């Protein structure tokens, strides 16, 4: 029978151990919060996506870059659904926060004169580089020096509320199985995104636990159907990555099965260095034409380029070496490359202070809606810093509310249920069912209503028939069971929100090929409704923002290009393949 741990008198509880969470914890302490507790299901600094990030940061250089242009590009990358005030904040703050991270001990790659070295990456502006996991190790040490109390191997499963206000959280220790109760004045959710445990290492603990807990507690979520990066791309046959930004930055090129460098067609300017949305359009259209497999060719890279890759991507390069794809300072052959899985980001809606729709709950990093926090470490840091400060301010004026012990008791039963079952469905069966449903590219990366509806039916089947029978042999499997349960909910949110967006914007729809700036400059919002979910839309307040899209409804520019290239034609408002 598992025991129970209580953690009380917390001012700011930070859930998640990546860069956004660490920054939130540090800034909450600096803003005067006395007891700041950071909890993670792994170990802070070794967990989530931050530790394995592709070695790059998109930092704005005040003396070299055009701020307005950078904000415009970030906004356009979201198809004008971005919260432009936040895009401005991220960009402006990214320079100072980069300097501060260096003071905290992060080793950025520098020039001989000691300046931050800018190199080509994806996108129009050069990026700066760091040395893989060193960044998170330095930041976790900084948080401990600041007096943040760390709790490891504890998975938070649900958020506690009292009269609509967030007052704590519950979870369990993934080794002892002990039920854990946190009583806090305020909470920062920094639990990252979800990739359905798809291709490639370095993100398989990102299972949307924060989205799921927040949804169950009644928070408003948005952005799943229109992320700035619909997917990422990894080696298909091996477990290697991440690092694509650096690989294409150093000169890696994509070739299709006909050995064509197809990105020249789809994005003649940036080619492989195009944004994730554009890469997704190109990969899925190539797949539709039967031009797979697709390869990343780096065999032409010079030894100094491979040395630079080894410097900033030590883990990924070891992986290549382990299967003979890198020998010495050469890539030995082109590597088959593929979308990981659709990125699932039904993020929490936040205001400029990163407060969510639930009083007392703040959110940072990719746990927030993509409209508020673009992908990447720079905005993980800036959003974390602001959320931490805002949470500390909130905690100063908030009185600690008593817990609803009936709610705690009910959640204890729900949390530990699979552990007490004795026998039943293995977590991996649920995971495989979810993956087989949402990972095929023509479900969420190239969309049509009938295919998404079939996928939704399959997810509902898993939800109704498999989840109630989930069995965990031990506390480790209990974690896997909760991850599978959360990913099932995430898939449902992802599919429902994607079905709702009746247009092509960041992702192409065959049945709605227009980008509709008359009716769809809107956020799709999901919220719990009893035992189900309700969807609604909210207008993006573009009238109050500097950049306004033209209010037109035109065939999406990528469908226009696809028609020109003879890949398809558009008839009666739908795509017909050639």
């Amino acid at each position, binding site marked *: 029978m598992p025991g129970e741990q209580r953690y009380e008198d917390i001012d700011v509880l930070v859930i998640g151990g990546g860069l956004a969470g660490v920054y939130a914890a540090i800034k909450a302490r600096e803003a005067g919060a006395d007891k700041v507790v950071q909890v993670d*299901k*792994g*170990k802070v600094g*070794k*967990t*989530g996506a931050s*530790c*394995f990030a592709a070695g790059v940061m998109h930092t704005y250089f005040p003396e070299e870059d055009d701020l307005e242009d950078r904000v415009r590009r970030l906004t356009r990358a979201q198809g004008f659904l971005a919260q432009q005030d936040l895009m401005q904040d991220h960009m402006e703050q990214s320079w100072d926060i980069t300097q501060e991270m260096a003071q905290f001990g992060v080793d950025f790659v520098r020039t001989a004169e000691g300046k931050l070295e800018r190199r080509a990456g994806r996108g129009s502006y050069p990026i700066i580089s760091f040395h893989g*996991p060193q960044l998170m190790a330095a930041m976790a040490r900084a948080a401990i020096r600041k007096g943040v109390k760390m709790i*490891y*191997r504890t998975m938070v499963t649900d958020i506690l509320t009292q009269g609509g206000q967030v007052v704590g959280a519950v979870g369990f220790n*993934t*080794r002892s199985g002990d039920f854990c109760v946190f009583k806090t004045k305020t909470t920062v959710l920094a639990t990252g995104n979800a990739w359905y445990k*798809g*291709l490639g*290492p*370095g*993100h*398989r*603990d990102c299972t949307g636990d924060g989205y799921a807990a927040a949804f169950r507690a009644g928070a408003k979520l948005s952005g799943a159907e229109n992320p700035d990066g619909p997917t990422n791309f990894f080696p*298909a046959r*091996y*477990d*290697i990555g991440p690092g694509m930004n650096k690989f294409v930055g150093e000169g890696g090129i994509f070739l299709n099965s006909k050995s064509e460098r197809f990105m020249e067609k789809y994005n003649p300017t940036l080619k492989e260095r195009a944004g994730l949305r554009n890469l997704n359009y190109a990969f899925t259209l190539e*797949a539709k034409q039967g031009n*797979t497999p697709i390869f990343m060719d780096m065999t032409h890279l010079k030894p100094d380029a491979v040395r630079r890759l080894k410097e900033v991507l*030590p*883990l990924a390069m*070891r*992986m*290549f070496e*382990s*299967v003979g794809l890198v020998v010495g300072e050469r890539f030995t052959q082109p590597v088959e490359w*593929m*979308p*990981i*899985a659709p990125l699932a980001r039904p993020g929490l809606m936040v205001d400029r202070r990163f407060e969510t729709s639930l009083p007392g709950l703040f959110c940072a990093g990719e746990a927030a809606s993509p409209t508020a926090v673009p992908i990447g470490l720079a905005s993980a840091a800036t959003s974390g810093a602001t959320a931490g400060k805002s949470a500390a301010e909130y905690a100063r004026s908030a009185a600690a509310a008593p817990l609803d012990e009936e709610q705690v008791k009910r959640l204890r039963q729900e949390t530990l249920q699979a552990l007490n079952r004795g026998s039943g469905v293995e977590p*991996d069966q649920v995971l*495989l069912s979810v*993956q*087989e449903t949402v*990972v*095929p*590219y023509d479900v969420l*990366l190239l969309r049509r209503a009938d295919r998404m509806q079939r996928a939704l039916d399959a997810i509902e089947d898993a939800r109704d028939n498999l989840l109630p029978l989930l069995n965990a042999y031990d506390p*480790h499997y209990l*974690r*896997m069971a909760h991850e599978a349960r959360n990913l099932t909910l995430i898939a449902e949110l992802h599919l429902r929100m994607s079905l709702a967006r009746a247009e092509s914007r960041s992702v192409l729809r065959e049945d709605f090929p227009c980008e509709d700036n008359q009716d769809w400059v809107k956020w799709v919002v999901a919220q719990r409704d009893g035992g189900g979910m309700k969807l609604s839309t909210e207008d993006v307040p573009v009238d109050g923002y500097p950049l306004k899209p033209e209010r037109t409804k035109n065939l999406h520019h990528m469908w226009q290009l696809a028609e020109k290239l003879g890949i398809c034609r558009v008839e009666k408002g739908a795509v017909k393949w050639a």
Partner: protein
Amino acid sequence: MGIRHIDVRLCNGCNICVEDCPLDVLRLDEATKKAYIAYLRDCQSCFLCQSECPQDAIRCVAVHERRMPKAW
């Protein structure tokens, strides 16, 4: 999916890999004070344990351990 082997002759029981593994795949044997692979199938092949092991006792190979549904 990736960790294959921990060399018990080299392992000094420092516990770094057990503490750091993001997927919580490893444990330390109480009696022998050696690390072992407890949940091989859940390894995410991140190579963190191999790169952090002060004894160079861990070997990883970047291949999928179980069926991996793919985009195409």
